[in-house]
């Protein structure tokens, strides 16, 4: 009497003595949907702070001379900008999306360990507060860059600010590892029957690989932070060359974590783009299996390239890291070609989400290509630690991450809130972002090639001034764009048009349920025969057998 069609849900103890309300609701929640929203809101708030710090940096650098702040303040501002953005925003905004979406995409009622999931979020919040508190202690926040190289960070920067930096990040690291265990287990164990691994949506694959990366890379960060603290406060000398330690040891361990970290940041975004484009092009993702393999190839290679951040140390084996770094361009390129292949002969609708995905591809390709330059040690000797590198990683982190993040927000906002964002404001926001972004960062390639180092509060070479002025103007435009989004978001959360279950004719399982989903996520789940269950349900008999990725319509 087992049914092979719809899957009714078990009863749940809905009858609770009193339903918690307001802040109690949020503090005691173990619902992955609420936790996902908490992650997104918190990380976005941190993003705004980090963005403000960036505007301070750009304002100072527009012209030669220290106009707005002293040397130490500048060093603190850029260090905290990097720290907030990389450690406290970039990975967590994707974690928030993953928290909300992955159980929905795989047909589960929640993640594998809902209470631990909540604990991960609170650890993230408290860790972030610890880092942010460093702004308010004597001496101010850390000023060693987000990379915190010793001996600068151990022996030369006294003060609690640096200590709080270390501890706060350690707490956030624990949150990450705990969350990774949770999400990997969820994806491995809680998929609805019929959803084999090769029928999972690409966003879920991206999250799986991203969480595996976190699982294997974050312990290196925790080790690094522990050693920093031991060196700073407990008399250890891991990194003191004079007494037998090694500074290069730090660089190795830090970058063994640090390089996978940037892939941790971008891989879920690849998943987002792989969801958005098929929906708005009305075609299945081109080369699903290749995309999965590409995820794994990128993740694996990302563990083999760490010392390309150390080419200029003179003490690493250059060819190995150069080859690995060059090779990582191949699976990344495969992904780009597959996205284009998805659009090719499609029927494309240009919603803000799709525009953002297009912007992502163009901008990310520039970032990726400039990465290939950096993978070559001789070229790296010339441009490392200059604004060329700054432009490269901002093309990936701001271009890639933020375009992808906005695409995700425009795409999934209806599912999270039940309302729609403004299409008109979305178009405005896209264009201001695209223009502002390129104005800010493209000139940085040029000025970096001309020799402008990074992390400098000031410069005296006046021929760099015009580029810096352009960059600053661009950054203000970026700020306007972000504010536009914020405005749209705040207005639409309360007063947006109701969205309905499936405003975009989506492909994956989350579009089958209501917007927002009920507490237990689904009232019923359709059978899973491909990676596009919602599409299959919509088109049913009409396209029977077409959704099979193994089918013969492959050249």
């Amino acid at each position: 009497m087992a049914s092979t069609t719809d899957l009714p849900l078990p009863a749940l103890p809905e009858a609770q003595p009193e339903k918690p309300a307001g802040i109690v609701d949020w503090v005691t929640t173990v619902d992955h949907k609420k936790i996902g929203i908490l992650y997104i809101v918190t990380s976005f708030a941190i993003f705004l702070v980090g963005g403000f710090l960036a505007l301070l940096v750009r304002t100072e650098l527009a012209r030669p001379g220290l106009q707005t702040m002293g040397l130490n303040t500048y060093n603190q501002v850029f260090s905290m900008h990097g720290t907030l953005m990389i450690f406290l925003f970039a990975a967590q905004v994707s974690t928030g999306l993953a928290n909300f979406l992955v159980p929905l995409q795989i047909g589960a009622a929640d993640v594998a360990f809902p209470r631990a999931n909540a604990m991960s979020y609170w650890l993230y919040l408290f860790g972030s507060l610890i880092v942010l508190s460093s702004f308010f202690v004597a001496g101010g926040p850390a000023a060693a860059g987000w990379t915190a190289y010793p001996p600068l960070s151990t022996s030369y920067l006294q003060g609690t600010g640096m200590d709080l930096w270390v501890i706060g990040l350690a707490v956030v690291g624990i949150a990450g590892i705990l969350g990774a265990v949770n999400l990997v287990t969820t994806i491995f164990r809680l998929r609805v029957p019929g959803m084999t691994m090769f029928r999972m949506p690409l966003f879920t694959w991206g999250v799986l690989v991203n969480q595996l990366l976190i699982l294997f890379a974050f312990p290196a960060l925790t080790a690094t932070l522990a050693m920093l603290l031991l060196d700073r406060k407990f008399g250890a000398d891991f990194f003191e060359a004079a007494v037998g330690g090694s500074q290069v040891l730090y660089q190795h361990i830090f970058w063994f974590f640090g390089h996978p970290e940037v892939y941790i940041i971008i891989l879920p975004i690849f998943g987002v783009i792989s969801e958005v484009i098929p929906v708005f092009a009305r075609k299945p993702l081109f080369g699903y299996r290749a995309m999965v393999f590409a995820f794994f190839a990128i993740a694996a290679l990302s563990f083999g390239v760490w010392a390309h951040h150390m080419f200029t140390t003179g003490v690493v084996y250059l060819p190995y890291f150069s080859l690995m770094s060059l090779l990582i361009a191949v699976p990344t390129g495969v992904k780009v070609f597959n996205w284009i292949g998805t659009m090719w002969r499609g029927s494309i609708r240009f919603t803000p989400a799709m525009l953002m995905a297009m912007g992502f591809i163009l901008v990310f390709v520039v970032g990726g290509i400039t990465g290939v330059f950096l993978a070559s040690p001789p070229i790296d000797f010339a441009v490392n630690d200059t604004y060329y590198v700054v432009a490269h990683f901002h093309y990936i982190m701001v271009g890639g991450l933020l375009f992808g993040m906005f695409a995700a927000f425009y795409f999934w906002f209806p599912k999270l809130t039940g309302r729609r964002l403004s299409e008109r404001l979305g178009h405005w926001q896209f264009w201001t972002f695209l223009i502002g972004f390129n104005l800010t960062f493209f000139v940085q390639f040029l000025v970096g090639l001309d020799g402008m180092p990074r992390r400098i509060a000031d410069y005296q070479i006046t021929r760099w001034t015009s580029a810096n002025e352009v960059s600053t103007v661009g950054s203000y435009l970026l700020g306007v764009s972000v504010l536009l989004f914020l405005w749209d978001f705040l207005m639409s959360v309360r007063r947006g048009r109701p969205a309905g279950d499936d405003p975009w004719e989506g492909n994956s399982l989350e579009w089958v349920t209501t917007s927002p989903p009920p507490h237990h996520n689904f009232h019923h789940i359709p059978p899973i025969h491909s990676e596009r269950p919602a599409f299959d349900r919509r088109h049913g008999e009409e396209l029977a057998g077409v959704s099979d990725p193994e089918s013969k319509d492959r050249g």
Partner: protein
Amino acid sequence: MAAGCAPRSVTEQGRAIEGAYNLFLYVAAVVFALVSGLVVWSVVRYRRRGDELPEQTHGHNTLELLWTLIPTVIVLGLFWVTLQAQDEVQTPASRPALTVDATAFQWSWRFRYEDSGAEVAGGPGNIPELVVPVGQPVRVRLRSADVVHSFYVPQALFKRQAIPGVTNEFDLTFEKVGIYHGQCTQFCGLAHADMMFRVRVVSQGEFQSWMASATRSGAPGQPGT
């Protein structure tokens, strides 16, 4: 600013980097033009024109194989170019004309000429000048007195980190007379932005006389601008 697009080197070692960079740039330009062209074309040609579902292709094995193999070959080619350039940049000269012990410290530089013992040291507001003869390999032995710094001469297309506990050696053969800006480019604390130096490349004769007077009088750093 346009000079930024095609960096030029004033050292012999840096010439190899010029070549590698230009090749990478051509490949990059082609790839970017191809990808953005395809994206723009898709956007224009495949706008939604009706409600009909387009053909639901899932992939194309041959095409996917091609666009995996071809980039791999290109990348391996770039790797080979890299190895050649790297050899040229890093191969130490058989007989350097002189050796300079360079020490980076917070926040300036000290250059000591090994043979003669002449020393040039910088300090606050005082940018040290490294004087070297043109056309001769100069061996630099780079050390740090405190934190990690980086010895960077933009027009030599070269930098190397100064790491406490590590001695880095490299050769620079300047091919053109002139004064070249140098700067620390590894964040090293408060006045990192001010940690500059200059390389003054002079003719052989001028170098001899400079060296003679420096050894006699102990040349200080040049007053900064």
